[in-house]
C-alpha cells in the first residue's frame, strides 16, 4: 500500500475546485433539507442532524481515501468487487424487509444501502478488466462476454431486492464505461441493431415481470391523472411544486407545496421539487450549472489520467453521478417514471451521500496523481 503523504507537491495537485463543488452541492442539500423538515414540526429536525453527521463521515472517508494512491483500487479491484457482491447477497438474505424490499443492512445504529457502494465497486471492476486488455481496433463481441457477466451479477442482485432505480443506474453506468473503453465499429453496429430488435421483447417481459408497485409507477408515469391520490400523487404534486416556483421561486422556506406537506417523501427522492418551488427557475439552473461544472471537470480528469485504469475509473465515477442527477431530476419533473433514485449530494440519505463523495474523492485522487507534464 503506498501512502504518499509527505509530498507538498501532492497537496498542490489536489483539485480543490472539485471538492469545493461537492461541498457546495451538499450544503445546498442541507439548506433544502432544513426547509423540508421545518414543515414536519419538531420531529423533522432529527433528519437534519443525521444528515450533518453523514456529511462529516463522508468528508472524513474522502480525506482518508486521498492518502492512498488509487492504484490501490487497481490491485484490489476484484476483491472489492467480490466483497460488494457478497454484501449484496448477505443483505438480500438477512436484510431487514423495509417497505417490501431488501436493500438495507444495519451496522450498529447506521442503516446502509449496499447497492450505493456496489455501483462504485462495479466501475472499479470494469476499469480493472478493460485496463488489462489491449485491443487497438476496439473490443469485439467476444471480448464483451466477461465484462457482461461481471456487470450482470450485481445488477441481478439489486434487481431482486427489488430496486429498479439502482439497477437502471448500474446498467447505464456499465454500458457507458464499456462504450468509453471502446468498441470496434462492427460491434457497435451489431449492438445497436440488437438493441432495436430486443426493445419489443423487453417491453413484453417488463409487462409480465414487473412487480405490482413498479408497474403502477410506470402506468402512472404514462398517465399521472390515473389515480391522483395514489401512485400518481407524487408526480402531480411535484409538478405543481416545480411549476409554481416560476422564475425566481417563492422564497426560501416559503414553498406552499413544501410547507403544506403534499409530498410524503419530499426530503429524499423529491427534494429537487423543493428547490424548484422555493428558488424557481434561476435556482434550478444554478444547481444544474454546478453539476455540469462537476461533470465537465470530471471528464477532463478522465482524459488526463496517467493510466488506462485511471481514465476508465474517472469516467465511470462521472457517469455514476450524472446518471443519478439526470434520472432523479427527470423523474421529479415527470419526464421519467418514478423509480426511486436519489439526487447525488442533495437527497437525504447517508449511503448515497457517502458514495457520491467517494466518487468525487476518486476523481480528485486520479487528477492529483496524473503524470507530470
Amino acid at each position: 500500500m503506498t501512502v504518499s503523504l509527505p509530498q507538498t507537491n501532492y497537496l498542490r495537485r489536489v483539485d480543490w475546485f472539485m471538492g469545493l463543488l461537492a461541498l457546495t452541492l451538499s450544503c445546498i442539500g442541507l439548506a433544502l433539507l432544513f426547509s423540508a423538515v421545518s414543515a414536519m414540526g419538531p420531529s423533522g429536525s432529527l433528519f437534519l442532524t443525521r444528515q450533518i453527521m453523514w456529511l462529516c463521515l463522508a468528508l472524513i472517508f474522502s480525506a482518508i481515501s486521498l492518502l492512498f494512491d488509487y492504484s490501490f483500487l487497481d490491485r484490489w479491484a476484484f476483491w472489492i468487487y467480490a466483497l460488494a457482491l457478497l454484501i449484496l447477497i448477505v443483505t438480500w438474505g438477512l436484510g431487514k424487509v423495509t417497505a417490501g424490499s431488501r436493500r438495507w443492512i444495519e451496522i450498529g445504529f447506521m442503516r446502509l444501502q449496499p447497492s450505493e457502494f456496489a455501483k462504485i465497486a462495479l466501475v472499479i471492476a470494469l476499469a480493472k478488466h478493460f485496463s488489462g486488455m489491449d485491443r487497438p481496433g476496439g473490443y469485439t463481441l467476444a471480448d464483451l462476454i466477461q465484462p457482461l457477466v461481471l456487470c450482470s451479477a450485481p445488477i441481478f442482485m439489486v434487481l431482486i431486492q427489488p430496486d429498479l432505480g439502482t439497477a437502471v443506474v448500474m446498467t447505464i453506468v456499465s454500458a457507458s464505461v464499456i462504450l468509453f473503453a471502446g468498441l470496434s465499429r462492427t460491434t457497435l453496429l451489431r449492438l445497436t441493431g440488437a438493441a432495436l430488435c430486443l426493445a419489443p421483447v423487453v417491453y413484453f417481459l417488463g409487462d409480465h415481470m414487473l412487480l405490482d408497485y413498479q408497474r403502477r409507477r410506470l402506468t402512472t408515469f404514462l398517465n399521472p391523472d390515473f389515480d391522483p391520490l395514489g401512485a400518481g400523487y407524487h408526480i402531480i404534486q411535484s409538478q405543481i411544486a416545480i411549476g409554481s416556483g416560476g422564475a425566481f421561486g417563492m422564497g426560501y422556506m416559503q414553498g406552499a407545496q413544501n410547507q403544506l406537506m403534499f409530498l410524503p417523501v419530499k426530503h429524499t427522492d423529491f427534494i429537487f421539487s423543493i428547490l424548484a418551488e422555493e428558488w424557481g427557475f434561476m435556482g434550478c439552473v444554478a444547481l444544474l450549472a454546478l453539476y455540469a461544472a462537476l461533470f465537465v471537470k470530471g471528464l477532463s480528469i478522465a482524459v488526463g489520467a496517467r493510466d488506462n485504469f485511471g481514465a476508465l475509473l474517472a469516467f465511470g465515477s462521472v457517469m455514476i453521478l450524472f446518471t443519478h442527477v439526470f434520472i432523479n431530476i427527470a423523474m421529479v419533473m415527470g419526464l421519467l417514471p418514478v423509480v426511486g433514485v436519489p439526487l447525488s449530494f442533495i437527497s437525504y440519505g447517508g449511503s448515497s451521500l457517502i458514495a457520491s463523495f467517494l466518487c468525487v474523492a476518486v476523481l480528485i485522487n486520479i487528477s492529483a496523481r496524473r503524470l507530470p507534464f
Partner: protein
Amino acid sequence: MNELSTDIKADYSLRARIAGIVILALILLLVVSLWRIQLIQGSEYIDQAHSNRTRFIRLPAARGKIVDIQGRDLARNTPSFVFSVIPGKLHNSSEIVRKLSAPLGTTEEKLRTVLDKAASGPKFMSHVIKRNLSLEEVSLIKSKLVETPGASLEVKPVRTYPEKETLCHIIGSLGEISADELTKGAAQGYHIGDLIGKSGLEREYEAYLRGEDGWEQLEIDAKGRQLRSPAGKSPKQGADLVLTVDAKFQKFCEDIFYQSAGSIVALEPDTGRILAMVSKPGFDLNLFSSGISERNWKELNTDALHPLENRAIRGLYSPASTFKLVPAFAALQDKIVGPQWKVTCKGELDLSGQIFRCWNQYGHGAVGMRRAIVESCDTYFYELGLKLGPDRISKYAALFGFGIPTGISPQELPGLLPTPAWKARTYGDIWKDGETVTLSIGQGYLTATPLQIAVMTAALANGGKVLRPAIVRRTVARDGNILFEHEPVVRWTIPMGSGVLAELERAMADVVSDKRGTGKKARIPGINVHAKTGTSQVIRAKKRTKDDDQIPYHERTHAIFIAYVNDMPKKIAVAVVVEHGGGGGLNAAPLARKVIAEYYGMPDPGESPQP
C-alpha cells in the same frame, strides 16, 4: 502499469468529448423542460398550488360497523361537529382565544395553550381543537366564525359504542394515527389525522373495517364557484364485522359479575365460537371515541385493577383444581391406574418431611378417582401425580392446550406449562417431587388464561377436539359480499381410549349433582351440568386460622369454575375466574349457573336444596 499511448489518449479524448456533449445536451433538456414547466405553464401551476382552480378533495370512507350475531350495533359511526384550526392561516390567534373560549366552554388560558401546541406542528394541517360539540356550542361558534379565518367547523364521523362497556376489551378503540404508523402506512394511503384501530378488533381488523378512500377533483373559479362536474372516485365503505357473540347474552354475563375483578368465557364447544367473553373491570369505550382526556386515561392506567387489560386472554391464573381433570385423563388414557385405584386421604401428604395439605383437613378417607374429582380431594391427586411424573402430566396438559396461545388474537398470552426441562433451562435447577405434587393440582408454576381453561373445558365437552376459539363470525362488505366466514378450526384431537372421557364426564356430572360435590351451586334442574371447581392460591397458605373476610383482599384465593352442557342441541362450555373471590364452588359456581340458565332461556333456579 500500462502507460497511455498517445493513440489511446486521443481515443479517450474524443470519447470524453462525445460524452461531455451528451451530458450537456441532457442537462440542457432538463433546463428546457424546467423552462416549460416553470416559466411557460408556471402561472397555471401557481394557481393550482393555491388551489384556486383544481382542488382534490379526499372523500374519506366510512368505517365498517362491528355488530353482534343478531346485527345489533356494537361500534358505529355517528356524525359529530369538530372545531379545528389551520395554524398557518390564522391571522390573529389572540382574537380567536378571546372570542371562542367561552363558546368552546374553556378558559382563554387553556385555549391559548392548545393553539400554541397546534402551531408547533405542521403549519398547514388542520388541527382538531375540540370534538363532539353540542348543537348549542355549534351555533355559538358559527356566529363568530366569519370573523376568524383559519378556524373551521366540520362534520366528522365519530366512533361510538352504544353498548358502552360491553365487550370493551374485545372491540378496542381508535386513535389518531401516530408518526410511526404513518410511515408504515403511507403506502396504504393513510394521512395525518386519520383514525386508526389502536387495540382489540378495531386494530386487528383495521384492513377490513377501514374501507377505501375516494377522491374528487373540483375545478373552482376565484370566487369559489364550481366550474365543471367533478371527476373522481367514490369512497368504498369498510366491511362490517359480525361477532359470534349475542350482545344481550354478553351483557347478561357482564351484569351478573358483581365481584370486582375476573373473567367469564363461554364457548360453543363444537365450533370454538365465543358466546360471551367478560373481563372485569371494564371501561366505557365511548371515553375513547372523541380522544380520551388525560385525566380519564391516567385514571384507567393507574387503576390497581387494570381495567384496560383483557383478562380473558391476558390474565394468567393457576387453573387450580380444574386442572385435576388432566392428570386424571392421563392416568386413564395411559392406563397408569384404573378408576378403581384408591388413595386414603388423611388430610395431608407427607413427602419426606414436606407437608402438602388437602383442602379438607379432616381427610376424605379412601377415595377412588370419581370421588376424588367430585370432592376435589387433593391428596389423591398428589399421589396420582407422583405416579404419573411431571413429563406425562405436562404432555397431556399440552394436549389440552395449556402453554401455547389459543390463536384467537395476537395480543393473547400463552400462559406457562412447566416441565422438568423448562425448569432446568430457566432456573438451572432440577425438578423436585414437591413440584410434581403442586402441578397435579394445577398450582405452582402452571398458569393459563381463562380462555385456555375454556378451551380445555370445550375439549372435555366435545370428545377431545381442541379448537381455535373465534370471536369474528364473518366480515361483510357493504355490497353484501361475505369476505370472511368463520369455519371451525380443530387444532388437534386428543387421542383417547374408549371410556376414558366417559369416566371423567360421569365424575364431572357428579361434581354438580352429588350431595358432597364441590359444584353443587351450579345445579340447574332439568339440565345436565358437568363441572369442576378450583380454588387458586395466591400466596402460600400457612395456616387456616382466618375466616375469609379476615384475609386481606390481595391474599384471598381466586375462585375458578368450569362447566359444560353437551347433551342438548345447543351446547356450551364456560370458564369462570373470580379474582380473590374465595372458593370456586362457593363464588364462581353461581355465576356459571346463571350463565348456563340464561343460555337455555331459563330463570335462575337459585341455590337449590337437594333434589
